[in-house]
């Protein structure tokens, strides 16, 4: 079972994300949630020996925002290889611009869909994305 850390303070989005991942029945994933930037980094730094397999990162987090979290992740040797998917509310282009302004990069960017069915399809997209990133698709 893979472990996914979602840095997300929006409870509706957490619920939807859980539903979306549950739809992928042959891809069991454990979802861990942290509600602000500081807690996210605290969790990651204390998560030895096992790191989560994937970080799904909202940009608008309380305390430290998503860009700051991403900067800290990329600057920490033990964390820098962690696959990170940014999932935020803005239009995709605005999300990428905002991250790029912080001089960092995520592995993938998604804009939270307005439509429920599209949101619930995110589970499939996250899975594919993870498989590409981890090379699992090749196996």
């Amino acid at each position, binding site marked *: 079972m893979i472990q996914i850390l979602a840095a997300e303070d929006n409870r509706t989005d957490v619920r939807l994300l859980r539903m979306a991942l549950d739809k992928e029945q042959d891809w069991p994933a454990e979802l861990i949630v942290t509600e602000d930037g500081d807690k996210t980094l605290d969790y990651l730094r204390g998560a030895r020996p096992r790191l989560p397999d994937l970080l799904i990162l909202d940009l*608008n987090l309380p305390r430290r925002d998503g860009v700051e979290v991403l900067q800290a992740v990329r600057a920490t040797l033990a964390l820098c290889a962690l696959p990170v998917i940014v999932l935020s509310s803005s239009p995709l282009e605005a999300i990428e611009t905002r991250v790029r302004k912080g001089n960092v990069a995520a592995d993938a960017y998604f804009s939270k869909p307005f439509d429920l069915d599209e949101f619930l399809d995110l589970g499939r997209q996250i899975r594919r994305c993870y498989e590409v990133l981890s090379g699992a698709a090749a196996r």
Partner: protein
Amino acid sequence: MKSPLRVLNIEDSIRDSELLRRPFEAAGYDIVWERAENAEEFRQALARESWDVVLADNNMPQFDAAAALRIFQQQALDIPFIVVSGAIGEDLGISMMRAGAHDYVLKHQARRLVPAVERELRETQVRRERRAALDRLRESEQRFRQLAEVTPHLVWQTGAEGQPEYANSRCREYFGREAADFPPEQWKDVIHPEDLAAAGAVNSDPDRPRPQGVEIRLRRHDGTYHWFIQRSVAVRDPDGRIQHWVHTATDIDNLKQHAEALVRTNAQLQQFAYAAAHDLLEPLRNVSTSLRLLERLYQQHPDKEALELIAEATGDAHRLHRMLSGLYEITKIDAADSAGAVADGAQVMRQVLANLRTAIAESNAEVTAAMLPSVPIREVHLLQLLQNLVANSLKFRDPARPLRVRLSAERQSRHWLFSVADNGIGFEPSQSQRLFDLFRRLHQDQEGTGVGLALCARIVSSYGGRIWAEGRPGEGATFFFTLPIREATEKDRGVPHS
């Protein structure tokens, strides 16, 4: 042609007067000749008309030349006064000349008379011209001073070496210095330290010509700095040597402040747009997805009324979403980053037709475009413009007839004039301005958010163009907009690449 000559002769003898007149006629003058016998006649003649010369006989018992000269001088006339006498001693002649007569001639030397008068006329002419030139100079000087004093600008003049020569009162007030004390020896005393470089090495070369003007801050007498456009122009003599420098400084402090305020406001607007697009979108999305989850629950235990209410609320949430997205698109438009951009009209039009393929097919419309040019704007902007206008035509088609939309562009002297004409339902001409207002919809029964045309207006105006619409209800609508003409590049001129 004979030269006219008007002579006023003071003479009591008709015969002598005739004798005096003859040599002038012989010399070919077209003569007007009047004889005055006494002071009264002389005064009247002087007052009545203008004369070229006065010839005064000195041998009249009751009115001699000296008396005539005094009357003549009271009139302050610049014409020759020549004394003519049967017998005149050297002493008398000299005393008359001293009194102000221009010459004296003996009657028996009548040969001398004409040349003497001619010489005096020439000298009078020279005197008049010189005086007129001086008057003009004085007048021009006065006009310059008046202009320099009433102008709201700071004006000062320096010599070739930069030494103070003149400073207008506005300049003296502003700097709190006397004219002789301005400009100061050290420019850094009055120019803001950060602007010394812009003012151009003013210490070493204070009067470097700056006809285009530089924007610098100048220090007022109270120590505050204000923005000015400062210009300096050299005044040269006919050989090209610099005689003076004329300097002006125009207060642009208000303009600068407004421009800065505008930049701040724009930045705030940009932030607001981001907030609208993001911070408002997030809770709205929560509302919308929660509604859909609620809908799912009710579908398991159907409740018709609840499902209707949920559908309405979901519809509104989606509309609000489209409005916020449109608002974000509009505030994002900025022509500033369009340097070097070129949009190929024909290619963009193909893209528009591809994007709207389904809608065009569904409304069975005929959309044609004639030779759209390349314009120096970002491709995405031309795409948004054309696509929104065509979509607008599709939306407001008249069900009574097949829709035809025709796009064209015409090159005018300063810009391209684009037009998008349709035969749809049109609009009330009185509404033509409001069409472009954000979130305004003229036809309430139509789908839409009132963003498309506002977006078009924003794009066009950000490139300095104009957009407007003409139409009548039931007769279709034509949208016009102007875009800049692309400057010819080397490639366009056929210069081969190396």
